[in-house]
């Protein structure tokens, strides 16, 4: 019975996974719809990467975010996907904290142009990171059987 799996922890795991999926799909689609050269200006304003890397990030990140969002939505290979998500968000958060601490007043670029990097964006991305970590840990702690809610892939069962 599926109903036996609806524990509070798993419901939270599901909500966290879907929230992250939504965030990545929204962020990715906004960036994907705009020319990558425009997103490159936002990446460049962080003043961290050489031009070739700026262009690579601007071209690839929106697509990567969309793929990540879809994977989170389906729950396929959740352990790996959640770990990658948490690592990516940790990277974003570190860059944003560094930029904010350096006093650079730039656009965040997180959800398209026009949003200043500040306390609000740090709080939001810190929350994303916390949720991603929780989802990743939750995915690893989930049972070894197929979990239709958390989305963990079935594991091979040993014969007794």
């Amino acid at each position: 019975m599926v109903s036996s799996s609806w524990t509070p922890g798993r419901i939270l795991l599901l909500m966290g996974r879907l929230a992250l999926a939504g965030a990545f799909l929204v962020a990715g689609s906004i960036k994907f719809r705009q020319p990558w050269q425009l997103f490159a200006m936002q990446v460049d304003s962080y003043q961290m990467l050489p031009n070739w890397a700026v262009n690579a990030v601007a071209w690839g990140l929106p697509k990567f975010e969309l793929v990540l969002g879809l994977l989170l939505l389906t729950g396929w290979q959740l352990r790996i996907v959640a770990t990658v998500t948490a690592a990516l968000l940790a990277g974003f958060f570190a860059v944003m904290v560094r930029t904010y601490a350096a006093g650079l007043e730039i656009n965040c670029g997180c959800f398209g142009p026009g949003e200043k990097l500040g306390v609000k964006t740090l709080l939001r991305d810190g929350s994303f990171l916390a949720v991603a970590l929780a989802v990743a840990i939750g995915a690893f702690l989930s049972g070894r059987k197929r979990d239709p809610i958390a989305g963990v892939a079935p594991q091979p069962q040993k014969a007794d």
Partner: protein
Amino acid sequence: MALAVLILTLALSVRGTLVYRHWPARQPGQRVQAVVNSGPTGSTSDAMRNNEPPETTPKTGAVASGTIVGAMPQPPGERKSSANPTHPGVAKAVTAQSKAAAADSSAGKTFGSKTAPITMEVFSDFQCPSCRALYEDTLKQLMNDYVAAGKVYLIHRDFPLPIPAHKYAREAARYANAAARIGKYAEVEAALYDNQSAWSADGSLEKYVAAALTPAEMKKVKKLMEGCTGDAAGVTPAKTNGQQAAHGCQLDAAIDKDIELGQQIPVQATPTFVIRHGDQHTTSSGVVTYPVLKQYLDYLMSQ
């Protein structure tokens, strides 16, 4: 808890993004009028209501010096046409010159052809290090490669931040605007940015401006500077109003008009630049390197 914050902030972000993306585009020739004349029910006002006030940009009351002719953004019904509501007589004394200056605050601060396919409007503060970096590393090359070639119409806008760390920013903007009125904006702009660290330390603006101009030009600039006092940082609005209105500092009217235009975008940090091409427009803040800006401009040109 974190999930609740996440959902809330995500909702705010999406809302803000949608507001941004539906921000109406303006035609280059209609820029000033479109912003200033849009009433409380206009699209620009809608955009303003849906955006939070800037965190580091001047607050309305803090910078709205009394000489500004177009009032700073106010809620519908509270908009006042008077420059200084506490001194109606003095408000009338705000000269026609000030009104004319405010009507076209970009006079002398534009470069290139108005018919260029791309318009780039840069809001900057002469005492801001990032603005200096943008000017030195990007805008100079842009002037040579795109503005001179008639591809980009460049408009400089003043956005001096009224913070103690930028206590000479407004005075620098006044010098630049005075120079603009005698057709020497580019020279003074270069002098101010090239020597930013020097005059930021001791306020010796006049020395560097004078070095960029002939004695006759400097005399004209100083004449235009007459009556302009206070640095906006630490000066109360009421005091600033009386001070400037009484002397009719026409330069401050132009600067405040630029600030007003910036607040309507809204400019949240300096430098901020708005790039317009046809019905597309984008706003970006911070320093962007020339190659990265160039590839975006080339993309726009290819559309």
